[in-house]
């Protein structure tokens, strides 16, 4: 799947996830830091308590007994819990507990040497076997010695490690949740916009009555929807008025055309006029018929578009209509060296306007033959299922250029390749109007140089046949 980085929904989602992640991450880091400080503070309190205890021992006992006292004390409390070291100012060990497993002596000596007199210093040092860390308090002890007390930070480190671990899990959850929630929100916000886009697409395709359902998208989107619908109303009105004007013009042209054609026909049939005049009059009649054909087709389209109530419904055998259309053009196709084939997989009967369907289908076959070169093939087939029946007209012509496709069904549209061919550019408009009046549609599949396929789709659920 190609990712469209310009999608607002995607951007909103990413922004949302990023925001969630950052806030959670920052919160976690601050909390971790605070907890770390608090935990170290607690440990420092422990070390300090221990140190005061040792100082009390040092002050009250004979120096010679202190060593034994310390060893007993550290052993009582458990060797792993804390250690004690007493050195002189130069770092020489005077007495202390067993240091195995605790930080190495050199580091401790260095701390003792560097101690500023009168101050105390908390330091975190790694244990000798790197199993963990120790918190070491270095301070002066009377009379002029340096006392170092250290305790293991094992439990606290484990606690912080757990905290980190769960923190990361929570962060990951928040990112996932942020993405999902963001996607949901973005989809919801964009749903209204998508509805408008879809409606606009339909309107651009000629369904001028299409509107967007007005409510429930949120205020901003609802405003967009109502403004869009108002615009669509205007477009529809303009289109209707334009068509009405066209239809009136078409209607009003019929009477003068009737006169011209009649007079010309009378002249064309009057052999006393001489060959040249008869020929001329015949030409006038031909042009009149061309114009009358255009006008009548325009009126037919208008009438068909007016809806199903204008149709003359009867029970129609689609297989027969398709077979008739093929038979109609059999001679033309033969003359042009085109193979015209009819296959009926599952023809059906339905309630339809036979004359209009005949004409719609004849227009499709007519077109297919026009655009297929000699040696090509035009294939007409009928297929049905429960819901609909489809008459497909497949040719092996040049195909329809992509730029022509959106205009195919427009009135009077003629593509580059059709200009040299007979026709008035109304055939497909009429066919589409007929399909839509029956609740159906015409689908177009086309590949350059591989031919085109026009599919007349008619729904079968139009009431009892």
């Amino acid at each position, binding site marked *: 799947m190609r990712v469209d980085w310009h999608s607002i929904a995607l951007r909103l989602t990413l922004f949302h996830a990023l925001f969630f992640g950052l806030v959670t991450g920052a919160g976690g880091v601050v909390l971790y830091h605070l907890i770390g400080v608090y935990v170290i503070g607690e440990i420092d309190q422990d070390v300090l308590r221990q140190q005061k205890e040792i100082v009390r021992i040092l002050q009250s006992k004979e120096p010679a007994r202190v060593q034994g006292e310390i060893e007993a004390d550290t052993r009582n409390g458990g060797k792993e819990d804390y250690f004690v070291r007493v050195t002189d100012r130069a770092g020489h060990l005077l007495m202390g507990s067993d240091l195995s497993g605790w930080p190495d002596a050199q580091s401790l000596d260095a701390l003792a040497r560097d101690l500023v007199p009168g101050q105390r210093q908390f330091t975190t040092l790694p244990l000798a076997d790197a199993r963990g860390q120790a918190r070491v308090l270095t301070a002066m002890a009377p009379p002029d010695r340096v006392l170092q007390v250290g305790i293991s930070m094992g439990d606290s480190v484990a606690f912080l490690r757990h905290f980190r671990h769960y923190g990361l899990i929570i962060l990951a959850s928040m990112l996932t949740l942020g993405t999902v929630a963001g996607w949901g929100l973005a989809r919801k916000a964009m749903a209204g916009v998508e509805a408008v886009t879809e409606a606009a697409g339909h309107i651009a395709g000629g369904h001028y009555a299409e509107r967007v359902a007005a409510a429930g998208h949120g205020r901003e989107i609802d405003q967009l929807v109502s403004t869009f619908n108002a615009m669509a109303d205007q477009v529809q009105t303009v289109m209707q008025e334009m068509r009405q004007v066209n239809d009136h013009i078409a*209607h009003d042209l019929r009477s003068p055309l009737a006169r011209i054609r*009649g007079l010309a026909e009378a002249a064309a049939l009057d052999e006393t006029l001489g060959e040249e005049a008869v020929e001329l009059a015949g030409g006038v009649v031909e042009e009149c018929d061309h114009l009358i054909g255009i006008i009548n087709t325009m009126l037919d389209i208008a009438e068909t578009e007016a809806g199903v109530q204008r149709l003359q419904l009867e029970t129609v055998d689609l297989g027969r209509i398709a077979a008739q259309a093929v038979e109609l053009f059999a001679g033309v196709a033969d003359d042009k060296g085109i193979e015209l084939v009819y296959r009926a997989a599952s023809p059906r009967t339905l309630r339809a306007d036979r004359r209009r369907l005949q004409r719609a289908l004849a227009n499709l076959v007519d077109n297919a033959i*026009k655009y297929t070169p000699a040696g090509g093939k035009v294939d007409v087939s009928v297929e049905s299922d429960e819901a609909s029946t489809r008459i497909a007209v497949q040719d092996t012509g040049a195909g329809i250029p992509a730029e022509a496709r959106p205009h195919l069904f427009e009135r009077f549209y003629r593509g580059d390749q059709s200009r040299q061919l007979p026709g008035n550019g109304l055939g497909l408009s009429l066919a589409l109007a007929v399909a839509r009046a029956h609740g159906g549609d015409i689908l177009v599949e086309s590949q350059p140089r591989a031919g085109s396929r026009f599919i007349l789709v008619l729904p079968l659920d139009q009431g009892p046949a």
Partner: protein
Amino acid sequence: MRILVVEDDEKIASFIVKGLTQAGYGVDWAADGETALGRLRAGDYRGAVVDIMLPHRDGLSLVEAARRAGISTPIIFLSAKREVDDRIRGLQAGGDDYLVKPFAFSELLARIQALLRRASGAAEPVRLSAGDLEMDLVRRRVSCGGREIVLQPRELALLEYLLRHKGSVVSKVMLMEHVWDYSFDPETSVVETTVSRLRAKLAAGCRSNGELIRTVRGIGYVLDR
């Protein structure tokens, strides 16, 4: 035994009158409904061509009045309206046929001839002919000087229609309607193609006849007597 043309548009009336006269009918013209009703009552007409939109009395009420007066003359309506409802109203008013403007005169003529034939109760022929060409309508066979010419069903129907209207020009639209049962003329000329195939077969099977089917430019085809 004349034909009455009731039409207020002078130009249209003029070519109908001229055409019918050329076809050998005696023709009277009335420009409004009242005059026309008087003529129909007074004279004995074989048929009438009546425009629906007329001054003083429209075509529908004219025909209704004529039918009430017991006048059974076959009547063809002319109308600028093409809706099916108008056609039905015209036939309900007592008209026998209905033609929408703009129309081909040749079609009007063919329809008048058909109406007159029906009204006269002429027996349906079983055999049609033109020169050496003969068509047996019962066995659906065509022969020329006794030699059979094999035709496709559609070519046969086309030839039959031309033979039935022998001497009159028939338009492509009429042929589409009666030979193919289509009510329009496709952009690709189906009629031309079939006519030229029929011509080729007739020319091959019926050498003596020369060009039997003549094209009249702009109007259609005619099978000469």
